[in-house]
């Protein structure tokens, strides 16, 4: 149920919660949000619930102290506690037992750190009460996978009073939710099957065309999975009166990799900018220091995504590309060529970095890259026409995913989403998703087909 694309969530939790939320008098709605979110979390991860609960209380108390006294050591102390908690659970889950990881801990700790820093820097106006703080930390639309909303945005919520306003907010949120659901269920989940099929063949045995299709496929899967999720999260937020959080803004239309990462998972990127990069001096320091700051940011970004070495390698490679774009391209390379390199980095290097992101064991990673660039020897038992078969099965999904990369399409939806034609299309999309989910969920024999 702790998953937005779960029928139990869509048809049980969400409607019941919305009714309860809007039956509550406006001033007490945060209480409803808090209780609903805690229930949501407890159903998904009871062990993690204790961790989340403790973290909420501790952070609230420290926040109170920081808000009134503005002591730097207090801030440093609680930030260290939060960071250590995150690191510890990441290490425990990696090296001891993987269900030690409380759901969403990477996201709610980052919210907590930003909350403490914002309080210290005076970015939060009035001193927040416990209910507001706790509801912000654990609000169910964001607790599992973000977006990492700032407390100041949380405070911008609207307290709808009239029936008209309430219903039009839910309607608008539902439109974003449905679009996100479609991306996740119809695109990402099917592309995931192709990526899984490639693993089933074995990376050492795929043809070079299939290796490249696989890189594209995984990149698109990741994009539509996370963008879809973010749209669903933002849509639920809109239903509750929160401002729409833009987490993905057409990243593949970016001119270079640093722009890509301002548009990809933007709430995480801006978190790193505001709470790590700028405190380290940002771009106002010497070139050597900027270089070092970028390295720190990307090493931590890698670690944040996962503890295994491939994530660190992934972060380092992104760092190298960004450093190249920043220190080598300007001035040293003709402008036109620099522009081309920037686009190539986004459209070709980024998918290759996602392969590193996807494959956690080095042996497999090496095998995959050997098939991408077959100059280093042949594969084992390669069927050279494997890509034709897979394009036959998944080509349609890949094509739709590629078309949806065109930035104009989403903007068109955003502007015209209330048009009757979109109403009909979204209605159909919604029920196709439900059809697909019904046949995948709770029925192992439909799902596993060998």
């Amino acid at each position, binding site marked *: 149920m702790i998953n937005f694309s779960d029928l139990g969530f869509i*048809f049980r939790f969400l409607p019941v919660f919305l009714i309860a939320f809007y039956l509550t008098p406006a001033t007490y709605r945060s209480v409803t949000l808090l209780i609903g979110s805690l229930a949501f979390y407890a159903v998904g991860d009871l062990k993690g619930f204790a961790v989340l609960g403790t973290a909420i209380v501790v952070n609230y108390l420290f926040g109170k102290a920081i808000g009134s006294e503005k002591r730097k050591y207090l801030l440093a102390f609680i930030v260290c506690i939060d960071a250590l908690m995150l690191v510890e659970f990441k290490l425990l889950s990696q090296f001891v037992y993987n269900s030690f990881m409380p759901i969403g801990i990477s996201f709610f700790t980052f919210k907590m750190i930003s909350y403490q820093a914002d309080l210290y820097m005076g970015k939060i106006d009035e001193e927040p009460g416990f209910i507001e703080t706790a509801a912000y930390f654990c609000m169910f639309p964001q607790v599992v996978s973000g977006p990492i909303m700032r407390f100041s945005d949380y405070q911008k919520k609207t307290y709808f009073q009239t029936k008209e306003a309430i219903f039009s907010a839910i*309607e608008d949120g539902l439109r974003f939710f449905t679009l996100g659901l479609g991306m996740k269920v119809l695109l990402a989940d099917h592309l995931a099957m192709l990526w899984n099929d490639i693993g089933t*063949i074995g990376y050492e045995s795929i043809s070079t065309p299939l290796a490249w299709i696989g890189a594209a496929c995984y990149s698109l899967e990741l994009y539509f999975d996370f963008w879809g999720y973010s749209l669903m999260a933002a849509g639920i937020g809109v239903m509750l009166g929160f401002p729409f959080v833009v987490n993905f803004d057409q990243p593949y239309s970016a001119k270079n990799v640093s722009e890509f990462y301002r548009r990809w998972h933007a709430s995480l990127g801006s978190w790193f900018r505001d709470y790590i990069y700028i405190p380290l001096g940002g771009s106002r320091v010497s070139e050597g220091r900027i270089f070092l700051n970028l390295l720190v940011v990307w090493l931590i970004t890698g670690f944040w995504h996962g503890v295994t070495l491939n994530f660190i390698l992934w972060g380092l490679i992104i760092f190298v590309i960004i450093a190249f774009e920043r220190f080598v391209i300007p001035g040293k390379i003709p402008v036109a060529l620099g522009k081309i390199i920037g686009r190539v980095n986004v459209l070709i290097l980024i998918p290759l970095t996602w392969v590193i992101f996807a494959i956690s064991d080095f042996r497999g990673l090496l095998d995959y890259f050997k098939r991408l660039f077959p100059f280093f020897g042949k594969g084992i*038992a390669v*069927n050279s026409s494997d890509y034709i078969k897979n394009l036959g099965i998944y080509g349609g999904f890949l094509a739709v995913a590629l078309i949806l990369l065109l930035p104009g399409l989403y903007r068109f939806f955003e502007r015209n989403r209330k048009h009757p034609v979109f109403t009909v299309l979204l209605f159909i999309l919604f029920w196709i998703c439900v059809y697909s989910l019904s046949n995948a969920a709770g029925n192992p024999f439909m799902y596993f087909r060998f």
Partner: protein
Amino acid sequence: MKLIKTCPLLFGVIITAILISVISFALKGTVYKDYAASGNIDTPILATFFKAASDGVYPWTKAGKADTEQVEGISESIIETDRGDGEIDTLTLEAIDEIESGTGVDESIISANDISGDDISGNSEEVYEFTEVDDDYFTDALFIGDSRTVGLSEYCEELDSRATFYSKISLTIYDAMNTEFIKTDNGKITVEQALSENQFSKIYIMLGLNEIGTGTPETFCKAYKTVIDRIRELQPDAIIYIQSIMHVTEKKSSSDEYFNNENINIRNNALSELADNKTVFYLDMNEAVDDENGNLLAELSFDDVHLKASSYERWHQYLLANAIVKE
């Protein structure tokens, strides 16, 4: 009315959801009988409607395809009689007699006689042993199977270039003979039709994983036997190899309620008894891919169920080393 204008999508979704839920609930004892039971409480009832729809069952479809009861009848009768190991042929025959009127597979009695009866007992003294052969052995061989056999055809060049493959992802013993999936110039035909048109000297079958969560080992074996009998009829001279259902890895086996090696072994044991070692042989191909605990070797598989492309060679080698040569 004004509200409906404000939120047409919301109202459309709510009304449809209520309608579908009501339909699903009202029909759960009749049209949706087979679907409502499989849904657990975690899934909202309206999922029933969509699950059924994907099988082509709609609210207006007539209720009571009473097959289920008959299948249960079969399994009971076999369980009751299945006491000794050696007598499986007669036991199965009895069971077939009991249910014959219901299933409408007229051939099965006759063909069951073919296999367990006396008409080939003339050369029954001859004992066949598995021997080693070379790849040309497979030029007149046929492989029938699910995705695992599809994998064999895709990643074992030696076999694919010589043998014929009637294999399809998610194929089960129940639909093996009558699903139209074999491509010919005149469209798709069933295995049964294809076997009426083409003759093979060796027929390798590996089926049984997809259906492991359905029916019982007895109903499964019964269906398997029916298929073999029918093949025997269409291909009187072919050597039929029943390949064991390949194991899954320890990881899968220990975490899956259905797809585990315990279940697979139960069915494999039953399958091994369908062999008469005269014309039907049982091949325990798991010998080629198992670890010391009888699970599929983890390094041979990525998804814990299928062999990786590079691992099919083990299967191929096993088949080369375990063949029957007559005359």
